[in-house]
């Protein structure tokens, strides 16, 4: 430790010295942190300079600064647990400061189930370092060597001797910045007392009383609310605009600059009406593709494949098979449809702009706003209040650029809250995609061939998972294929890939006349995969029967964000209408050490419930660039009446560091329901969502 050495990281770009008041601040750089390397390899583009900042105040309260945000996933609480564990303070004494670009360490974004898995180790190391700094200060104060000191609940005391001092007392009158380049020793997982428990969420009281603030709830004096002129269709260009009628509305400000046409007023509804008074004409391109022709378009537009996994020889594999089956699976565009629409408030003071944004990526927004305004990122501060759902959709935040530009032009605070129509229109949808699989089994029911091609969903979730001697996984992608924006949607790509894989596995099991669970177990040796399959079978009281058994039971399994999941679904199908009702969902998940079991369970329940949507009812209909579903009246999402019984099991694995939890339990839902539908009525569905018509059609074909 370099005492009183203000190393370079201590005053790097986050300007950590800005803190007012006393206390001890610790900035940590993990240069050779071996515990991070594997995680970083998994995730290209994540910053290589993991930082964690911790401050112990004179009142003994601990502030933890994290670039992650809270959008419902419970990361605020679980990060506080990790901090309290390493600092050895009570959880009640920890305050989280999240997603503020002026205060928090840079972070690429809250997505990919990475908070616990990847930022967690850095956060824990930062807090362990802070604990060591405090122990050294205590050693000086008490005149006792550090190895003779113990700490509990923020109180340092000599082992078996006299003398004690609190963190608060150590921090008093101090203004110390220290930098550590070495790794501090993390609390052994088996000794953890805060991690592994389920404290109540930090945000619970605010969220049940209406006090929780989201970006749209922040108010500033003189604030204007903006509505922006939108094209009728993606790809349309504005040819003429007449704002005179809108300008005549008392109190309305009209902006028409560089393609941004907006009306602003203190009252949102006046702005709504003024927008309707704008006369505008657009050139709308002829639609070339729609939601029924999109898959042919995708396969044609993405011919070039990249082979991700290869084993053995496909021809040899085909030769070893007695039954080969070839199928194509289709997936449509799906909206994020967060309850909170994209929202931002921007306020300009001199040459600085401060924004409150509903974002999963405050640092990304900071850079984009700076570029849009042609100013330095240091002139932009992004603050992230509570976010009303993200699921990947709030990685992209044009509303922040719009609010910043309008505030910069009008020199007044401007709030942009997208309407639900704008929210659907500008969403970065889950990508439509196609999966083609040719696979086969030998007479013993062993998979010998796996020839897998995915178009436009990427390779997340495309692992073979099973022991197949002859396999190829090829991903076909191209730019400019989609008629509008697409992006990450909870478990990006994996929902599609696993729908393909686990449906195909079931088809082979049925071909072999083997129970689908037994077929999986007999083709898999991965112990973590087997453990979740066995756990879910036990929890669901699975009894073996080849499908279709008429019972409506399905099984599927997957791997996502380092976490293994297996599901059993029970459905009933109305054979006259094809309507599917999900009766029961059982899920077993193995995610290494579980930081907060109740929080992890909530994410599993949320994934299962949300997953019903993409499997059974959600897809965006469109004609060219025109989006036909723009509100919840036609775009249906899961409701209370769709809710099955949900049972969840966390499979213990104390040997493994904590893995991701925000997404894994959603990636198999399409597959497990497709398999359950087949088991119920013999109808095999190949397209998500599987509408009643497609289920019925499958019955007549089956």
């Amino acid at each position, binding site marked *: 430790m370099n005492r009183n050495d203000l190393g370079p990281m201590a005053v790097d770009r986050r300007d950590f010295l800005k803190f007012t008041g006393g206390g001890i601040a610790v900035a940590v750089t993990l240069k050779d942190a071996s515990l991070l390397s594997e995680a970083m390899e998994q995730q290209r583009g994540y910053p290589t300079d993991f930082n964690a900042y911790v401050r112990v105040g004179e009142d003994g309260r601990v502030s933890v600064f994290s670039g992650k945000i809270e959008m419902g996933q419970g990361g605020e609480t679980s990060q506080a647990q990790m901090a309290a564990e390493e600092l050895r303070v009570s959880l009640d004494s920890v305050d989280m400061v999240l997603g503020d670009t002026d205060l928090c360490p840079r972070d690429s974004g809250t997505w990919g189930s990475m908070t616990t898995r990847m930022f967690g180790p850095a956060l824990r190391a930062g807090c362990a370092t802070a604990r060591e700094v405090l122990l050294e200060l205590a050693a000086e104060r008490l005149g006792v060597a550090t190895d003779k000191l113990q700490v509990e609940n923020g109180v340092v005391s000599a082992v078996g001797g006299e003398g004690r001092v609190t963190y608060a007392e150590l921090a008093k009158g101090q203004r110390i910045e220290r930098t550590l380049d070495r790794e501090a020793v993390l609390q052994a997982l088996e000794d953890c007392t805060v991690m592994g428990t389920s404290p109540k969420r930090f945000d*619970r009281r605010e969220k*049940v009383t209406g006090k929780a603030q989201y970006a749209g709830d922040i108010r500033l004096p003189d604030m204007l609310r903006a509505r922006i002129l939108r094209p009728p269709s993606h790809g349309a260009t504005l040819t003429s605009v007449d704002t005179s009628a809108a300008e005549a509305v008392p109190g309305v400000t009209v902006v028409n600059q560089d393609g941004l046409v907006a009306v602003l007023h203190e009252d949102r509804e006046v702005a709504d009406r003024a927008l309707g008074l704008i006369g505008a004409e657009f050139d709308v391109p002829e639609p070339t593709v729609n939601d029924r022709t999109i898959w042919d378009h995708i396969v044609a537009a993405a011919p070039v494949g990249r082979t991700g996994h290869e084993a053995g020889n496909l021809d040899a594999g085909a030769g070893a098979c007695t039954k080969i089956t070839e199928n194509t699976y289709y997936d449509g565009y799906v909206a994020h449809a967060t309850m909170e629409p994209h929202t931002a408030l921007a306020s300009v003071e001199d040459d600085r702009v401060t924004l409150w944004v509903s974002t999963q990526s405050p640092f990304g927004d900071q850079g984009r706003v700076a570029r849009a305004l042609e100013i330095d990122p240091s002139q932009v501060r992004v603050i992230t209040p509570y976010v*009303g*759902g993200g699921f990947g959709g709030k990685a992209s935040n044009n509303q922040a650029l719009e609010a910043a530009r309008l505030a910069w032009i009008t020199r007044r605070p401007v709030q942009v809250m997208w309407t639900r129509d704008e929210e659907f229109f500008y969403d970065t949808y889950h990508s439509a995609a196609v999966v083609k699989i040719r696979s086969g089994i030998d007479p013993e029911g062993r998979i010998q061939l796996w020839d897998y091609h995915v178009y436009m969903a990427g390779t997340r979730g495309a692992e073979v998972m099973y022991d197949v001697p002859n396999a190829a996984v090829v991903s076909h992608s191209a730019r400019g294929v989609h008629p509008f924006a697409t992006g990450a949607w909870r478990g990006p790509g994996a929902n599609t890939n696993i729908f393909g894989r686990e449906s195909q596995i079931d088809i082979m099991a049925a071909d072999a006349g083997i129970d689908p669970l037994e077929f999986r177990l007999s083709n898999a040796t991965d112990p973590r995969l087997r453990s979740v399959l066995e756990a879910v079978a036990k929890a669901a009281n699975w009894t073996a029967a080849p499908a279709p058994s008429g019972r409506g039971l399905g099984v599927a399994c997957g791997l996502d964000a380092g976490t293994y999941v297996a599901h059993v679904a029970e459905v009933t199908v109305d054979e006259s209408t094809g309507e599917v009702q999900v009766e029961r969902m059982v899920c077993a998940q193995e995610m290494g050490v579980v930081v907060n079991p109740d929080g992890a369970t909530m994410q599993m329940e949320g994934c299962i*419930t949300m997953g019903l949507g993409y499997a059974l009812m959600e897809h965006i209909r469109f004609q060219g660039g025109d989006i036909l579903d723009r509100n919840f*009246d036609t775009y249906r999402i899961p409701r209370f009446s769709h*809710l099955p019984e949900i049972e969840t099991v966390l499979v213990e694995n104390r040997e493994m560091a904590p893995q991701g939890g925000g997404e894994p339990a959603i990636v198999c839902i399409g597959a497990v329901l497709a398999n359950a539908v087949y088991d119920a009525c013999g109808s095999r569905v190949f397209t998500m969502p599987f509408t009643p018509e497609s289920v019925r059609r499958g019955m007549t074909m089956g």
Partner: protein
Amino acid sequence: MRETIRFRLNGRDTTLETDGTRSLLWVLRTDLELTGAKYGCGIAECGACTVLVNGDPVRSCLYPVSQLQDADVITIEGLAQDDDLHPLQEEFAERGAFQCGYCTPGMILEAYSLLTKNQRPTRSEISSGMDGNLCRCGAHKRILEAIEAAAARL
């Protein structure tokens, strides 16, 4: 057209001098500085803006304030008595019957009204009573459990 509208808001006499065609949602959020009711869809399809008018849940996004004359309005901010949370709020908080929290005020007020009319609802009555309130995070299971637990206490 400007009107004088007198009503009770969370137990307090309130007077508005405003255009009566404005929606209750934006009047709450702008003039009355109560932001617990959320904008979600603007067409009464999601329930995020739900408040109680004379005990009934209404979608405030489409509710003109002119209809509030002499009405009793309860928003999420008015449900707790001082620091004492309503049992529904307690059960939602303790059981984690929320995630992002954006739909939560509407959920709690919808449930409040439901329990006023049916003190011992079955699971399926709760489910159908709450079906017009959307939650994207998938907290439905715990919301049903929280409502049942609150019903048992009321």
